[in-house]
Structure formats: C-alpha cells, structure tokens
C-alpha cells in the first residue's frame, strides 16, 4: 500500500494493486458520516467486439449487453442483492456508461459487511435463461422511458449524427429488438472477459481507516481464485474524422424545440497526460466562448435564442470524443447557425485573452475544491481518469500550466467544418 499526500487540499490517497490485478484506492474523509464505494469495470456499451477470454476469434455481441449484465448482476439464486444492502442500512446502485460499468453503495454503518456484499456479488455471476427473459420486460420499459425523453433523444441524436461506425452511436441500453437476442451465454462470455479483477478498480471514500479496509479487501480477494491476468482484445471499426451526417431532426410530442450542435473529435487513440491536456484545453475554450461571462452567451440570451437549459461540454475517451453545445430554443436553425459561426470564427481569428484564461483557471480551482465535498464525484471521476491513465489530482496542476497556445491548438484541431453536426427536436404538428 502506498500513500499520496495532497497537503494543500488536506487529502490523502492510499493505493494498492492486489495480486490478482485489482486496483484498490482509499481516500479517508474525516468527520463524514458516510462511506461510499464503487467497484468499476473498464467495460461499457462500446465494447461490443472482442475476443472472449480463452478463445481466439472476435465476436460481436448484441447492443445493450453491458447494461443488461449490470441489471442481472443484482439477481442471485438466493434473491435480490438490494435486500442485502438495505438490511445493513446501505443504499446501492449501478450504472453503465460508454466505457464503464460501476456498482456502488453508500452506508453510514456496517461498512465492512457492505463492502463484502459489494465485492462478492460482483465477483459471483448467476444468470439463468429464466431470469434473463424476465429482465427483458423491465429493460424494455427502461428503453421506452428514454424513448419518450426528449433531452435523451437530443443527446443521442447528435451522437448518431457524428459517428458512422463507432459503437458510441448505439444507445447504452440497446433497443427492444437488440436485447431480445441476449442470452445467458452472452452474459457469461462478457462477464468472464471483462470482470477479471485486473480490469477493475475498487474505490472507497469516507469515514474509514485505510489500513483496516485495505487488509479487509486483501483477505477477501486472497480467499478467491481467479484466472491469470490477460490483456483484453477489443476491436473497433475504422471511424472517419468527418461526421456521419451534417444534420438530422426528430419530431416529438414536445412544446419547446431543442437544438444540439456536436463537434466530433478525431479517431486518434489518446490517453494519459495528453488526453488530460486536450480535455482541459477544449473545455477551457468552451467556457470562455460560451460561459455566462462571455459576449456570446449574453447576445444569444438577449436574442432569446437560449434559456437556462443552455449547456456545453467536451468529453474525450481513448478512441472517441465529442463536444456538445445546445439549448431549448424557439429557433433551432438560427441557434445552430450562430453556434457554428462562433466556433469557426474562433479558429479563424482567435479572440481568447490571457485575462479570460486566468479567470477560467481560478474558477475551476474553486470548482474542483467544491467537487471534493462529494465522495461520489471523487470515486467516479478518479476511476474514469485512472481507466484513461490520468490522475484526477493532476487536473488542477495541469490546468494551471495551460497557455493560450495550448488552448487554441486543441480547439482549432477539434473544430473543423466537416466535423460539425446539428440535431433538432421539433414539436409535432397536431400532436
């Protein structure tokens, strides 16, 4: 176990790699009542083509398997895992993203008991044809709920516009049709490949003694046997740099139109500090261009083109990334035209100043401190960073070193005319 000290922040992080390959991190929080733990595998909806553990050929699994598997992990021969957590007063949950599946709980008593429940249920799959069939009804309802959710459709509409082949374009839960093809064998195949301890991270934040908890995890893991660690072979189709389509729209039973502009990142693989720097640089540029202190925000708001739903964000993962800028708006066409113009103008004639850069840095330093109030943020973000070979606690130091050139370079290599797309949700007439 080794310890990292962040003196200015008054935080300490304890890290150990177990002999089976599992990474364990503990960040003690004095004075907190609760402890929060996440057990995450580097496996999400995009990992749909891979060589299963112990086999030789690539397979393609149905869309929505990772999320389906997440649901099914909670059901065991002896019953539902939620029950075990709640007997100990814990509340548990799970989520599946493009690149990760996380199981988590928080509790204010019986921490070690709950931790065992978490580790043990994720490390003991139990799938039967019968329970797999039953789950299709529940997930089918989850999918239709999202189908009716205009903001979700807007988000995915923009992503589908951007990507031609990359599986990020597929809804995380799959479709009612794709999940109908899922069998218990798919689940075991994916589980065995991606839930090996060496592909996972356990993160614990809260009212704990790090020595004790690390010992506890060590004992838990050494009592179990695992296959030797293997590198996972994933496959992704070649993705062009240009967007799949420049524009698309959808009519729904809504009152207010919605507009989302997407900017696609190139397909070059990226990780570590390089990734961190790119993400921070682009987000800094977006903050300066579209944040509430910007001229552009003021004029878009004054013109009535955006409201307080206006948002912008850039995410970059290992082999895909995108920026999204959008809002509820009475005039999606005008808004998307203006957003595109702002983006392309900035590339042509950079307007960002040193003062603006300093101001965003200050703002983000305070924002990072605020995030440290939240155990959920620390555990989830640290894990996401670690899976991309980045360190969450490096974010502020790297941010502080960013120069105007860094920001402009990252921004202008992202923003290119053929990588921009727009998607609208429009009210149905006579709905």
């Amino acid at each position, binding site marked *: 176990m080794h310890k990292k000290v962040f003196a200015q922040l008054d935080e300490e992080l304890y890290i150990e790699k177990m002999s089976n390959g599992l990474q364990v991190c503990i960040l003690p929080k004095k004075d907190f009542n609760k402890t929060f733990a996440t057990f995450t595998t580097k496996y999400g909806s995009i990992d749909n083509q891979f060589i299963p553990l112990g086999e030789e050929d690539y397979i393609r699994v149905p869309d929505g398997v990772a999320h389906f598997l997440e649901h099914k992990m909670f059901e065991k021969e002896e019953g539902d895992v939620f029950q075990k957590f*709640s007997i100990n*007063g814990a509340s*548990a949950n799970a989520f599946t993203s493009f690149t990760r599946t996380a199981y988590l709980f928080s509790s204010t008593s019986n921490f070690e008991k709950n931790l065992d429940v978490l580790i043990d249920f994720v490390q003991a799959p139990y799938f039967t044809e019968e329970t797999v069939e039953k789950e299709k009804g529940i997930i089918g309802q989850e999918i239709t709920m999202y189908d009716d959710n205009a903001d979700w459709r807007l988000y995915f509409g923009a992503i589908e516009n951007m990507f031609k082949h990359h599986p990020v374009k597929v809804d995380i839960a799959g479709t009612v049709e794709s999940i109908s093809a899922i069998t218990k064998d798919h689940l075991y195949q994916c589980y065995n490949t991606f839930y090996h301890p060496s592909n996972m991270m356990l993160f614990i934040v809260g009212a704990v003694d790090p020595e004790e908890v690390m010992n506890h995890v060590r004992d838990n893991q050494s009592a179990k046997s695992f296959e030797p660690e293997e590198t996972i072979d994933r496959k992704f189709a070649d993705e062009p740099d240009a967007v799949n389509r420049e524009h698309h729209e959808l009519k729904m039973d809504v009152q207010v139109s919605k507009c989302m502009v997407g900017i696609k990142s190139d397909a070059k693989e990226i990780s570590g500090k390089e990734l961190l720097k790119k993400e921070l640089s682009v987000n800094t540029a977006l903050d300066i261009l579209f944040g*509430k202190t910007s001229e552009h925000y003021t004029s878009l708001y004054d013109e009535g083109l955006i409201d307080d739903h206006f948002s912008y964000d850039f995410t970059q993962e290992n082999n895909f990334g995108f920026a999204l800028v959008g809002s509820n708006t009475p005039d999606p066409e005008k808004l998307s035209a203006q957003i595109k113009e702002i983006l392309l103008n900035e590339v042509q004639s950079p307007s960002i100043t040193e003062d603006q850069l300093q101001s965003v840095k200050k703002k983000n330093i305070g924002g990072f*401190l605020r995030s440290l109030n939240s155990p959920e943020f620390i555990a989830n973000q640290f894990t996401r960073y670690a899976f991309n070979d980045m360190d969450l606690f490096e974010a502020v130091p790297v941010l502080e070193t960013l120069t105007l050139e860094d920001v402009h370079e990252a921004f202008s290599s992202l923003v290119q005319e053929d990588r921009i797309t727009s998607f609208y949700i429009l009210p149905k007439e006579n709905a």
Partner: protein
Amino acid sequence: MQLDETKIRQDGLNIRIIQTKKFKTNQFVLKFKSLLSEDKVTARALLPYVLQSSTEKWPTTALFRSHLDDLYGASASVDVNKKGEYHILTFAVDIANEKYLQDNTPLTEQALNVLNEMVFHPLLEDGAFSQKVVESEKRTLNQKLKAVKDDKMRYASQRLVEEMCSGEAYALHPNGIESELENITPEKLMEAYQQMISSDEVDLYIVGDIDSGQMEKLCKEKFSIASRENVKAIQKHITIEDSKKIVEKQQIKQGKLNIGYRSNTFYGDHDYLPMAVMNGILGGFPHSKLFMNVREKESLAYYAASRLESHKGLIVIMSGVEPAKIERAETIIEEQLEAIKNGDISDQELSQTKAVMTNQMLETLDSPRGIIEVLYQGETAGIPVNIQGWFDGIERVTKEDVTEAANKLLKDTTYILTAKEVAESA
C-alpha cells in the same frame, strides 16, 4: 448525533450557523417564505431570476459571473419551490474556503457581499426593474413552464397534483402560471419584490468551517431585516367521498400511472414518523413493496415508487408502465397498500426500512445543502429539528404504528397518461 449549531435572531432574520470541518467550501443560503397564492405566484417565481441577472454593482450577467469567477469560482444560484402551501425563494452562494487555496485572501465576507448585493440591491430604472431584464427573464420562465410538459415524468406528477388539489393553493406550480406571465410589468414585479422584502419570513443558513462569532458580526453589518409576523399556512384535514380518475393521451411510448392519497398527517404530528416509515415500506426504496412487486416480480414497470409530501399530508405513488399493462399495474399497486393496511409487513421489511432511512438522513447531513434542507424542513413547520430525536423516533416505530398510519390513507385521485394508440400486449 448533534450539529454544532448557533441560532441568532436578528430582528426579522433567523440566522443558523452550522460549524463543521467536513467541507472545502462555505455555503450561505437565504430563504424567503410566503404563502402560495394564485395572484402572487407568477411574479414571485420570476423575481429571483431578475434579481440574479442585474444588480446595482453588476448590471449584467456577464459582469456578475466574472466577479464570481474571480472569487475562485464562487457559485451563486437561485431556486423557486414549494413546501406544502408555502412558496419558497432561495438564494445561495457557495465559496471556496481559502484555507485550501494557495492564495489566502479571505473569501467569506465576499460571499456575504454577493448575497447581499443579489437580494437587496437590484438594478432599478425609475424605481422599477429594468424592462429589458424583465422581458428576457419572462421569456426564459415561459419556456421553462412549457418545458415541464416535455418531461413526461414531471408532467404526470404535476397533473396529478393539479387534479387532486384543485381549488387548494397546493395545486399551483411554484414556477407560476403561464397565462399570467404576460401581465407582469416591471412595476408589478417591484410590488412583489417590496412585499417579499417586507413580509416574507426570512432565514439565513451558513454552513462551513467558519467562526460563528465573526459571522454574527458580519451578518449584523450586511443584513437589516425589519421584524415581522410569522407566515403560517393552515393545514386542512380532507375527507374523500369518491376518488377521481383522470386519463390523458399523448403520442408517447411509456404510460405513467400516478395515484395520490391523503394521509392527513403533517410534519411534526405524533404519527408523522410512522407515516414516513409506512411510505418507506410501500415505495421509498429498491427493497420496498412497490419496487419488488410491480417491477421485480411482475416486470410491469421500470420505476414504481412512492413519495411523502410532509407539509401537505399526501402520499403520491408514481410509476412508468407499458400502456397495455396499466390496469394490471394498478391492481398490483393497490394490493401492496392493502397488504400494509392488513399488517402484512415482515420484521425484515420494517428493520430494513428503518436502517435505510437512518442511513439516508446521515448521508444527507454529509452535504452542506443537505444540512440546510433538513433544518429548514422543520423551520417551515415551525418545529425546530432535533436530529437525535428523529433517529430515536424512527427506531421506536412499530409494525402496529405503520399499519395504523396506512389505514389513515384515503385514495383521492388516479392520474393516467397513456399512448394514443395502445399496442396489444402479449
């Protein structure tokens, strides 16, 4: 379990200072409370947004936000909501504790300045708010009111309350009434503002690693709020003769089935905690009867849960169901409540629910806003919160108490939002 809490009454202002070393930021929240009423709700809903958009010192959003960025990303936010029949306007500032920054310039006083400027020094033109700002915020609020209809889950919850409580102030949406919005002029808004400043009940909460003596002194300097009467809503007990059923159709894929019950139990009543435990057993958690039976056993819904409206004496059940299976879901939901009424509650269900509720409360106290909301919950009802008393009270609730609470429930209204064309179900 106790909070390190200092209470100060400064004329018309109730100040609560909660000293804790848990957080890396300090939180300042100012709350204005008035009765919900049809003629005031829309102007009041608009007020906080106009106030945060333009002040004397920072006449534009861009200037205001720049100042906040320079204060190490201080966050300033406003919020409008209701608790029972109270309309509550919230102004909050969260600011880094300079202890954790390389630059040690004190920030606390700055946070109070921001709060003070935002609420008490609006930008005025000829004694009223700026026409331009008012118009632009009206447009945003109008869009927000329209957008509620686009989030089917929220829409169904709102429609149930409108139907169930029709004629009662609680039926009003805290964000106001769309058709009233056009009638709001800068002058009318000014009247609403003056009324808010002169008659609302005002509470200030401060949470963080701060010196309460110094805070008290600063609050005296920054805020002067004249004494006033307490604002008190009347809690009416409602009897139901025939329950209502409302069915609405839209072009959607997933139906919503929401059912509202009168509990006639209010925050602070002797059976308030049994009612809360009852709600937990019924549908508060993933181990609850609704989730286990409607979702897990029957695969009928993705979500099925219940919620307690503490200050209005209601329990509301919400579920998202395939349109063809709404009737089936309704039957199963009714059966769950019947089971509790008949005392069909296992020891495990009772102890799990208590354990999870206790956990939830402790977790809430791990966030600055959580602490404030827990304390304000009691303040709204005029009953100071005793955290330890709450834990002890939950522990004392028996199965009989829960059954008794369930038997008080009166089914009032069923609201169904369903698809225009219902697919045949297998």
